[in-house]
C-alpha cells in the first residue's frame, strides 16, 4: 500500500480535485497590490458577498483576537486585523464550507487551537498575535480538505482509528502514504499563502522541520497538544500527540506562563461548546 506509485497517484487525484481559491481572495490581493484602493474600497468589495461578510465579522469578534470592543464593520476589521489575516479568515470560511456535512468537532478543534495559539503567543511575547491565531485556525487545513474531498479514504482512515487504535496521522499515512500536514502544505502552496503560515500547517507535528518561522510553528504545535489534552473539539482521534522538546525550548515557556495559558484556555473554552459560532 505504501509504495511510491500509489502515493503519487493519490496525490495527483487530490490535486486534480483541488478546490479553487475563492475569487474574492484574488480580487482582494490584486486590489491590495495595486495600491490604488483604500481600506474602505476593499471593505466594500468584500461586503458584496453578504454571507461572507457576516461570517467574517463573526470570526473577527472571536475571543482569540481579543478586541475589547466589538468589531462592527469590515473596514474596522481590515484596519484592526490587516489584509493578510482577513484574507486568511475568508480562506478559512471557504475551506470549511467545502465540507458537505459540517464537521462541528473539527471546527471546534480549529477554533480551540486558534485560541490557545493566541494565548501562548501572548505568553511568550510573539510579535504578531493575530498571525498566531490565524495559523492555529488553519493548521488542520489538510484534514478539512481530506474530509471534504476524499470521503472514501476518510472512511478507511476512520476505521483504522476506531478498530486498530491507530492515531489519525498514522492511519492517514497507512491509507494515503502521507498525512494531513502534507496535504495542508500542498493546498497552502497552491493558494500562495505566505510562507510563515505554511510552516505551522506543514510542521505542527514535527516542529523541527520549520526554518523560516520556527517559533510560530512551535506555538501551534503546543497549542494543538494543549487543546487535545484539554478535550475541546475533535481532531479525529482522542489521543494527545507527542510533545517536541526542541519546540518547547524555543518558546522558553516557564511553568508559570504555562499555567497562565491553561487558565486562559479554561476561561475562553470552558463549556463553550455552544459559544463557537458555527461556520
Amino acid at each position, binding site marked *: 500500500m505504501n509504495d511510491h506509485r500509489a502515493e503519487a497517484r493519490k496525490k495527483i487525484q487530490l490535486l486534480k480535485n483541488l478546490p479553487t481559491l475563492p475569487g474574492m481572495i484574488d480580487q482582494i490581493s490584486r486590489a491590495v497590490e495595486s495600491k490604488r484602493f483604500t481600506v474602505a474600497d476593499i471593505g466594500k468589495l468584500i461586503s458584496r458577498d453578504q454571507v461572507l461578510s*457576516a461570517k467574517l465579522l463573526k470570526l473577527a469578534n472571536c*475571543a482569540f483576537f481579543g478586541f*475589547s*470592543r*466589538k468589531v462592527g464593520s469590515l473596514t474596522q476589521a481590515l484596519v484592526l486585523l490587516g489584509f493578510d489575516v482577513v484574507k486568511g479568515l475568508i480562506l478559512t470560511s471557504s475551506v470549511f464550507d467545502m465540507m458537505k456535512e459540517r464537521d462541528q468537532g473539527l471546527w471546534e478543534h480549529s477554533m480551540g487551537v486558534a485560541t490557545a495559539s493566541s494565548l501562548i503567543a501572548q505568553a511568550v511575547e510573539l510579535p504578531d498575535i493575530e498571525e498566531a491565531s490565524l495559523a492555529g485556525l488553519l493548521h488542520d487545513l489538510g484534514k478539512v480538505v481530506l474530509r471534504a474531498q476524499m470521503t472514501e479514504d476518510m472512511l478507511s482512515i476512520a476505521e483504522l482509528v476506531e478498530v486498530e487504535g491507530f*492515531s489519525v496521522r498514522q492511519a492517514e499515512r497507512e491509507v494515503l502514504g502521507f498525512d494531513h500536514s502534507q496535504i495542508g502544505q500542498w493546498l497552502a502552496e497552491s493558494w500562495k499563502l505566505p510562507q510563515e503560515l505554511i510552516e505551522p500547517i506543514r510542521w505542527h507535528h514535527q516542529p523541527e522541520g520549520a526554518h523560516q518561522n520556527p517559533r510560530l510553528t512551535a506555538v501551534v504545535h503546543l497549542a494543538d*497538544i*494543549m487543546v*487535545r*489534552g*484539554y*478535550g*475541546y473539539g475533535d481532531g479525529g482521534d*482522542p*489521543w*494527545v*500527540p*507527542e*510533545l517536541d522538546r526542541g519546540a*518547547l525550548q524555543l518558546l522558553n515557556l516557564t*511553568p508559570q506562563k*504555562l*499555567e497562565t495559558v*491553561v*487558565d486562559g484556555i*479554561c476561561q475562553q*473554552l*470552558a*463549556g*463553550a*461548546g*455552544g*459559544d463557537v*459560532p458555527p461556520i
Partner: protein
Amino acid sequence: MIRVPVEELQEGQILAQDVTRQDGMVLMSRGKEITPEIKSLLLRMEVVQVVVEGDQFASEEERQAFLAELEKELSLRFSRVEDDPLLMGLRELYRRRLHMGCYPRPRPQPPAPPQEDPGPPVILAKKDRKKP
C-alpha cells in the same frame, strides 16, 4: 456559575457576571441579588440570559459522577504519552482545574427544554440578537 434564561431566574440568585450589551455597555453589575423587580427589569431590557452563581448540578452525587466521567476521558487522552513527565504535568493542571469547574464540555442535559441558540459569551439583549 451557570447560565440561566431570564424567564427561569429564581428569587435570591446572585448575578455572577455583569450583564452587558454587545457594545460593552453594562446594564447591571455582578453581585446583584435577583428579586421579582430585578427580574422584570431584565425582561423589560430584553436580556435573554444571565450568568448567576451556583451550579448546573442538582446534587453533589451528580457533580461527582460528571467529574469522574471527565477524569476518565482526560486519562484516556493522555494515555499514550504517560512516559512524558511534562505532559503528565499538563494532565495534572487540567485535572485540578476540572475540580475547579473548568469543564471542557457542557454536561449533557437530559430533559433540557428546547433552546434555539445557546448564545454568545456576552449576554445580549434580544434586540442585538435579532440582527442578521
